[in-house]
């Protein structure tokens, strides 16, 4: 981005990132869904597929409805060993900003803590986002979690 972003907008992006991390770390799937506009895309994809141009993602959702289905799945249908997750998100790098939206990236690390176990690095990667302005503030139009982690430690249940 050549033009400087107003502090207010930059701050709102940081707040959205923080709100997102807070939602997924608190298992508040309703708040997670609310970070997105209705017509959204959310993907968790291995870096390998992303860079080689393979379309397969570990999860790929194309609407807020699909996100709600995942939220229901986590709460009601997916059996899993319980765990906490903790997101550490780096400062957003703003790539472009216009009335249509803001394109930005941020590094992330997710630490997983299983009950009675040590905390371990669960997933590390980069968010690639398109953020749009709505009457309820900034929301994700697109969030891609492109992860370096070559092996998923068994499974990914909660959103990254």
């Amino acid at each position: 981005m050549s033009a400087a972003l107003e502090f207010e907008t930059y701050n709102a992006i940081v707040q959205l990132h923080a709100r997102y991390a807070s939602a997924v770390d608190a298992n508040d799937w309703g708040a997670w869904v609310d970070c997105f506009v209705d017509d959204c895309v959310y993907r968790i994809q291995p870096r390998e597929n992303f860079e080689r141009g393979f379309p397969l993602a570990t999860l790929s959702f194309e609407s807020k409805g699909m996100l709600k289905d995942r939220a229901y799945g986590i709460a009601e249908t997916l059996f899993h060993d319980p765990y906490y997750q903790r997101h550490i998100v780096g400062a957003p790098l703003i790539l472009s900003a216009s009335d249509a939206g803001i394109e930005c990236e941020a590094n992330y690390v997710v630490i997983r803590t299983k009950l009675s176990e040590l905390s371990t690095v669960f997933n590390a990667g980069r968010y690639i986002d398109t953020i749009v302005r709505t009457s309820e503030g900034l929301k994700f139009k697109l969030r891609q979690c492109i992860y370096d982690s070559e092996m998923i430690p068994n499974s990914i249940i909660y959103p990254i």
Partner: protein
Amino acid sequence: MNERVIPREPHGLDWFQNGTSRIPFRVYTDAELHTRELENFFYKNHWCYVGLEAEIPNPGDFKRTVIGERSVVMTRSEDGSVNVVENVCAHRGMQFCRQRHGNRKEFVCPYHQWSYTLKGDLQGVPFRRGVKQAGKVNGGMPADFKTEEHGLNKLRVATRGGVVFATFDHAMESFEDFVGSTVLGYFDRMFDGRKLKILGYNRQRIPGNWKLMQENIKDPYHPGLLHTWFVTFGLWRADNKSELKMDSHFRHASMISTRGNAQAANEVSKVSSFKETMKLHDARFLDIVPEAWWNGPTAVMTTLFPSVILQQQVNSVSTRHIQPRGNGEFDFVWTHFGYEDDTPEMTERRLRQSNLFGPAGFVSADDGEVIELSQKGFEQKPEHRTLAELGGREVGDTDHMVTETLIRGMYAYWRKVMGL
């Protein structure tokens, strides 16, 4: 000197009624048994999965993968043939190939620059004739050194329908005989000669014994119970029309099922995972369109022992490669694909349905979880055994899925090969 006495059954595995309906936990927890499994199942007398030809479409393309716990490289050479070589330099044993895929004219070990063709033949050795210095020749390989005697370890390769298998065992039966006609029919159904199109990979590390993944896909009992999506949307349930078929050794199997009874209430829907009122917010996850090649069944899950699972679940097709890492852990690599004649809509559909499968899938994520927790149970009580007696204690094909016969079959084969 006294002869060393090797005990015949060092592990003293206790099999209930000398059958396989109760499986000792030790088969999952014993590191020495694991080493013997690698030798008996992965390194001889079995064709192991290596990859898909579509992963190496062009001359010079290669893919690094493993058979059991041995690193191998699949290559396409200039003449178009598919080769598999062991990733160990003939000189000092270094794993020379570290890239996982790429395109090369030759392989050069970085350590001393021994170079090999894509078929594994040794081409050149630096300083083979020595180095001339001050009028004399220093060093060099012995006069009787022959490059043709020091190529890479070349595996025997079989390709069928675009799928590549290899074996270290040059004396074993053909791939077709290994699979047997019954299961080969289901193999050919999915790999019918159309070119495959790679959609991508998912990789997960599961802290459990590798056999548990074979057993997971030889166990039609759990999907309609553990997997809410399967039972609720009728994708896999105990009252679906289904068949279980094995090869004559009981090592490979196909579970064949046809979808029916979505959200209908009956005996099956009394299970607690059935959710009568569950509706998707976005029905595109289950936008299922029947394909001609199915010939009826909506799901066929084939286990080729020991290394791979072939998945057709409605429009989602994949191979799932089992890569052991000791007795208590394995890597599980999913390769999702489509066919060359897929429309863009069909590709999109396969990708949407892939949300059900893989390490985060609405259905499959919990398979890895139950395997991890099974292994934990075994580790704490290795003298105990599992119980796999649904449908009796015998082994045989069935026309229903209310049985654990395929697991019993796999262990009948395991016992025969392991001599335990």
